[in-house]
């Protein structure tokens, strides 16, 4: 698993990257009440705003961590946004990206580095 400074986790499965938000991010957001996911088939560039997530407190954007094509989205969290708080690093993944060049992940944090990052 890789982590971004935007508090996303990335799990690589062949040429597909599964993206979600970390437990730390979910806790900081508070109770999630609304999720808007991108259309399957959308070509995204790193740092594009691809997901809108709203908690009881505020709206936040989730950025595409790398370039790629959205190949699947998790409709279950649209139906039940509270899943994002219950299982952010498991069942409540956000989208799957098909990525041509996985080398962009090389510079991202591993779990130990991310833990140190959020401890600061």
């Amino acid at each position, binding site marked *: 698993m890789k982590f971004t400074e935007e508090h996303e986790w990335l799990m690589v499965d062949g040429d597909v990257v599964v993206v979600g938000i970390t437990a730390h991010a979910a806790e900081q957001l508070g109770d999630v009440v*609304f999720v808007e996911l991108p259309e399957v088939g959308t070509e995204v560039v790193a740092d594009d705003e691809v997901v809108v997530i*709203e908690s009881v407190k505020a709206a936040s954007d989730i950025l595409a961590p790398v370039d790629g094509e959205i190949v699947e989205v998790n409709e279950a969290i649209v139906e039940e946004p509270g899943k994002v708080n219950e299982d952010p690093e498991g069942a409540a993944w956000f989208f799957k990206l098909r990525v041509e060049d996985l080398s962009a992940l090389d510079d991202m944090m591993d779990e130990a580095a991310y833990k140190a990052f959020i401890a600061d």
Partner: protein
Amino acid sequence: MADELKSTVLHGLHGALGAKMVPFAGYDMPVQYPMGVMKEHLHCRAHAGLFDVSHMGQVILRGAGVAEALETLVPVDVIGLEEGRQRYGLLTNATGGIEDDLMIANRGDHLFLVVNAARKDADIALLRAGLEPKGITVKQLENRALIALQGPEAEAVLAEHHPSVAEMRFMDVATVPLAGAECWVSRSGYTGMDGFEISVPAQAAETLARSLLAHDAVAPIGLGARDSLRLEAGLCLYGQDMDDGLNPVEASLSWAIQKVRRRGGARAGGFPGAEPILEALAHGVDRRRVGLRPEGRAPMRQGVPLFAQAEGGTQIGVVTSGGFGPSVGAPVAMGLVADDLAEPGTRVFGDVRGKRLPVDVVALPFVAPSFKR
């Protein structure tokens, strides 16, 4: 930060309870506790919640003719307010705008006011300027905390500390000994539910708060849930749903102006902005505060512009407060809309991130009140 944040006397308790603190109206206040906004909100509606509202201003007005004097600053029947009763009021300005909303209690030989934290300095100045020349003393109390206990189990909990509170009706005020101190209790609150607000001497505040929190029914509630509770109850937040540029009729607070202060009443007018406010009451206004229920799941928050059509046209209003209503289970909002679109059932559209989403004008409140009348 330019100014040092103030803290209430319960600041240490908030820390001990694991609160997440935020700056609010110049105070370091708990926005939520470990339970989280959603669960706090639902707990309060199902059981009871304890709120530290000590940042609000507590003011005593004393002197001969104090009720008559205060009527020169508020469009409210103060003279008719019986001893042991409280009433919602508004401080207005010369153009008819609202300087603040407040609670006015008749405690026998004096009036006791509770004003908003963010407005208390301005309110005190306004009260002093208007009342001191009439021989009324205006005393801001710095040595008392204010605790709200709200929810369906509030009465049972507080009655264990003193049985007399069970006899109080909505908007009654009484002096009640609690935690060994003289407390001033009102049966009121800002959640749309039954409950109490307790003015307690500062040195007894933590003892009282801890003894109330010792009941299983009572959970501490932060500002986050306080906001969603008051929004579901259709209650205004000063600076969002009302301000100095909005008159009481536009703010849909005409009910707070009793007949005796309206045209044809025995004490009509005589308050700041009486002319524009009474004119608005008689002949209507161009915009009004309404309830808004977004059709989908997307919350419409403060500042979302409103349109009459799904495409084109000019803006006809704006969301003034909005978010997710945990008890409603869906987004809820309030906003100002053009008067001809203010009828419940009217569909308008809110621009959320560039998309116009349908939202219906609805009657307030979103959650039926449960006051003990």
